[in-house]
């Protein structure tokens, strides 16, 4: 019974059929790959279970074909060697799959060393921050994709089941953090406006965009659409509103305020009123003098500061601070800029520079700044009692001022501009963020996957979106739990440092001829270090890993090189398998050239 089964499994007929089927499937797969994508082809064909089964069946066929011919004679050696070789390669591949480690290290030139590799397997890391305990749970992406019910994640022993149960619901290929603006309970004035823009020449259906303008968030105060800027301005009281809508001359606005924080002592000084006066702090210890005000700051040809006009296009203030610390006298000279805080500079004597902060606030609408004269600007004013106003100005024209209702188009007939309406006015805005799945953008070359988790505990049942590489902390029954969804990291017994990355080019061109990383590898135990150059086709072997050049990037931040580290215990089987196959074919086809002639004659005779 068994021998007949083996005879069938090892028959050459089955082999021909299997080889035929495999060929057809592979042809289909490569065509599918070129019309779809490599990823899809892998998940549908090469990575699928049935494909592995087919290969396994072929392996069984190879083994049985050898068994059927037992007891073996000398003329079987070629056949046996070849089939043993195929088997060795298959076994080597399985060993590599099960025991192999593969990962990448990205190193920056001249930076420190790295002692762990990042694999492409994803894990969810759960830690208790109060006890410094953590768990790493590998995620099976394919299983998760096809699962209809959430897959439980074992939290033992760090979090008992009665406190929290976690299960993975699904994985999203790409997500994005979206702003969500809600009415806060604080009821303090902090306005936000939701506006909608739709193309005036509606040539495509989904050309409507919604955006939030938030006063308290510097990144969301101004929106830009080509040459158009939209700015939010807040007016808490009627008086402020009147001032904004009927602005007094610039003289009346003043020159803004400067906030000093000197070793914890805070002083606010209005610039216009305090020029060239010594202002003392509340405890009288610190003296501040605003030496000079430059409404439109520039450096002239002799590198000395000047103001090129009287309009506050680039306000800057030259100040002097002095105070006494015990016996010692401390003083600071500096420049501070309203629009470019990062350019501020100071010279400090007798104190720590870190302890001194100077901040110049000069609130003007963009309309007051000459630098924006060539832009089209719409200022939306959020006033008290839900009043909405706009001030708009097209480049080179006069300002237009008017009131607005919600959902009413701003009455501007500027060519090419989108129609703008205010959808919502939130008086006391609180900005939250929400992770939502978005379609994969292959052109962008970057995606942020997220894992949806289901959390279940006493009084708690919620779904959470954990974005890749963004830690997320929650408190459950007073236990702080930190989730991190990331690539798995495998620690190494050695550390690698990139000393130099070079990219020689072909003569006279910018075409790279090679990518070369000079690395130092240090054994952690012995401290022994080796320096070696790794480049394409010239990997380095160290500590059971083969280290090869994989990628690079050369940006403003410095050169980085990505190395691949691979440890494959099945590698030698693949080598020996390959050698055996070749020797086997040699024996089979070429060792006794005359036997074939006889057999072919025999076949010809049979055919007649």
């Amino acid at each position, binding site marked *: 019974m068994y021998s007949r089964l083996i005879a069938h499994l090892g028959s*050459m*007929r089955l*082999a*021909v059929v299997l*080889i*035929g089927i*495999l*060929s057809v499937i*592979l*042809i289909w*797969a*490569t*065509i599918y*790959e*070129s019309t779809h994508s*490599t990823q899809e*082809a892998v998940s549908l*064909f*090469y990575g699928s279970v049935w494909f592995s089964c087919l290969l396994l069946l072929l392996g069984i066929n190879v083994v049985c074909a050898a068994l059927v011919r037992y007891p073996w004679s000398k003329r079987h050696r070629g056949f046996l060697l070849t089939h043993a070789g195929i088997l060795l390669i298959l076994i*080597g*591949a399985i060993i*590599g799959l099960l025991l192999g480690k*593969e990962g990448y290290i990205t190193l920056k030139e001249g930076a420190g060393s790295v002692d762990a590799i990042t694999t492409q397997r994803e894990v969810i890391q759960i830690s208790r921050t109060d006890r410094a305990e953590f768990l790493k749970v590998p995620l099976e992406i394919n299983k998760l994709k096809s699962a209809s019910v959430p897959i439980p994640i074992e939290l033992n022993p760090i979090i008992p089941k009665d406190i929290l149960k976690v299960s993975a619901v699904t994985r999203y290929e790409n997500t994005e953090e979206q702003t969500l603006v809600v009415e806060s309970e604080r009821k303090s004035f902090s306005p936000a406006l939701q506006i909608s823009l739709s193309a005036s020449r509606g040539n495509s259906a989904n050309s409507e965009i919604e955006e939030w303008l938030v006063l308290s968030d510097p990144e969301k105060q101004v929106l830009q659409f080509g040459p158009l800027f939209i700015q939010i301005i807040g007016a808490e009281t009627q008086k402020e509103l009147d001032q904004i809508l009927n602005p007094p001359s610039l003289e009346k606005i003043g020159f803004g305020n400067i906030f000093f924080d000197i070793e914890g002592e805070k002083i606010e000084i209005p610039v216009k009123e305090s020029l060239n006066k010594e202002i003392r702090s509340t405890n009288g210890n610190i003296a501040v003098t605003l030496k000079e005000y430059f409404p439109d700051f520039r450096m002239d040809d002799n590198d000395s500061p000047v103001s090129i006009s009287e309009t506050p296009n680039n306000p800057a203030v030259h100040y002097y601070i002095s105070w006494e610390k015990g016996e010692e006298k401390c003083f600071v000279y500096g420049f501070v800029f309203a629009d470019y805080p990062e350019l501020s500079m100071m010279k400090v004597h007798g104190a720590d520079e870190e302890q001194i902060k100077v901040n110049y606030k000069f609130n003007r609408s963009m309309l007051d700044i000459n630098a924006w004269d060539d832009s089209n600007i719409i200022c939306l004013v959020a006033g008290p009692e839900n009043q909405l106003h706009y001030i708009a100005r097209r480049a080179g024209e006069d300002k237009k001022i008017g009131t607005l209702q919600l959902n009413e188009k701003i009455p501007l007939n500027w060519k090419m501009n989108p129609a703008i309406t205010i959808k919502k006015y939130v008086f006391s805005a609180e900005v939250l963020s929400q992770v939502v799945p978005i379609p994969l953008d*292959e052109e962008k070359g970057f995606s942020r996957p997220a894992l949806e988790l289901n959390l279940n505990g006493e009084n708690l049942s919620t779904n959470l979106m954990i974005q890749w590489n963004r830690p997320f902390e929650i408190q459950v029954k007073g236990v702080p739990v930190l989730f991190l969804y990331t690539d798995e990291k495998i620690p190494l017994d050695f550390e690698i440092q990139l000393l130099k990355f070079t990219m020689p080019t*072909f*003569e*006279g*061109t910018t*075409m*790279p*001829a*090679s*990518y070369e990383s000079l690395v130092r590898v240090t054994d952690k135990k012995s401290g022994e270090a080796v320096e070696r150059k790794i*480049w*394409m*086709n010239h*990997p380095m072997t160290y500590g059971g890993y*083969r280290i*090869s050049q*994989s990628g690079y990037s050369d940006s403003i931040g410095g050169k980085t090189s990505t190395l*691949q580290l*691979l440890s*494959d215990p099945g*590698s030698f089987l*693949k080598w020996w398998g*390959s050698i055996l*196959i*070749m020797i086997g*074919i040699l024996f089979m*086809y*070429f060792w006794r*050239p005359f036997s*074939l*002639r006889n057999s*072919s*004659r025999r*076949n*010809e005779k*049979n*055919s007649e």
Partner: protein
Amino acid sequence: MSSLRCVILLLLLPVWLLENQCLALDKNSIDIPSSGLSLLIVQDGGRKKPLDTYARENLIKLTGRSKWKDSEGGEWTALEVIADMFLGTNNWQKEKLIKVGHILLKKEVGLDINEKFFSYQDLHTNQELMKNLSQIIRIEEDAPQYDKTLSFEAKVLLQKIRLVEKLTASEAFSWIPAPKGESWFSLIEGIEFYKEKGKNIQQNYENLKTVYLAGGDRNFSDCVNILFENLRSLVSPNDYPQGKIRIEVFYNNLHPFRLAWIACLISFVLMLIANQQKSLGKAIYWFGLGVFGLGTILQVIGFILRTVISSRAPVTNMYEVLVFMALGASLIAFFYELFCRSKIFILSAAVVTAVVLILADNLPTVFDPSIQPLVPVLRSNWWLTVHVITITIGYAAFLQALGIGHISVFYYLFKPQEEKSIQSLTKFNCRTMQIGVFFLSAGTLLGALWAEKAWGRFWGWDPKETWALIALLIYLAVLHARYVGWIKGFGLNAASILAFQGIIMAGYGVNYILGTGKHSYGFGIGGEEIVAIFVGIEILLVLFAVIRYRMKRLKND
């Protein structure tokens, strides 16, 4: 005596081709002075090459042709065209040099679709057209589903326009040597770098120009020699390798592969005659074998010259693989023939070699014959040589099997009484496929081992490796099916023809049709129609043969 007439016609064919292709090219080189400039070294595309090569490559890039007929009917070699741009006043910007073949592109950018060639001025001064071109290219960047060939063709056209601009400007290319692998200079940069010496070169160049424009005479070669002398004195001899450049110019002018296919066709005809003739048969056979041997030696010479020029095994693009495949098939046939004289191997090898070499020789835009530096991932002489040469020997064996397959199918259908010939043909076909299987599996395994080293994985189902496996599996299925007895002699021969279509897909299709995967350094476009027609004819042929063979068998039964 209809067969004799046929034979004479066939004999005349290569002679005609020879005259047409070979002689015409080098005819002018004696009396036109620019030929002395062929040895001027130019740094271009990542290596140093003679102006001769530079000119050939760029003329093909612009016009798709290897020589040029100007509007007044004058014939120019590539070197003459480029040298004239370099030295002359002839207004090439007005010459209709730029080939635009893509009809859809012509429609999109507003060019006359009945015209094939356009001048630089036609295109460059047409602002509407330039705007359209850049728009087509930009749209592709935003939308991936946009017609990729169109934007590719648009990019190519833009490159051609730039190329004419570059070639006709005084700052044409980098021909002033720089020390130690640095970027070479154009004339103006050279003067700045070398000061006095650079001014000398400029003087030489001006003299050369004057002599050239005056019609050229003996002085021209003197001027060229002085120029070379001065250029050589700028850097160390290693940085101005005139010996190697001489070899390359020799290779360019020899056309070893063209001569080889002509030799193959001649030997094919001779072998046919030898088959017919009783009295003189033996002498003609030896003569034919000699011609075939000459063709093979020419291929070997070509192969060695390419190796010397590029300092690596010349097996890195489609052209080189085709040429090497032909060489392999020729060698296998030649050795078979030496061991057992049956004419048939030479007959089949002569045809397949000639077909492959004619394809490689006449489609420079599809199979680029230029020598280019290697991409980093291939820069391992040992692995590259071993892997690609082994695979290509495998292909060559299957090519030879294809030839034998055709002849045996022919025998089966029209001369079934010659059983002995059929039997030996079938035996050799089987043996050749076995050789192919050995080398293809060795090459594929070597590729896997190399991939393990270079890419970090042994096998990754990359389209190229998958197709190598498919081709191997097809041949394995054929050989195994024969052991089982599912196919017999006829089936094996027919299968050797069909299975070769798998090799075409693995070699050509993956790089030119599928165009995905890690072997992207070998990708190209073009030639789909020719390949499709070839594959179609082969499949129809086999179908026809199978039907006829079956009907015959039925009748006999």
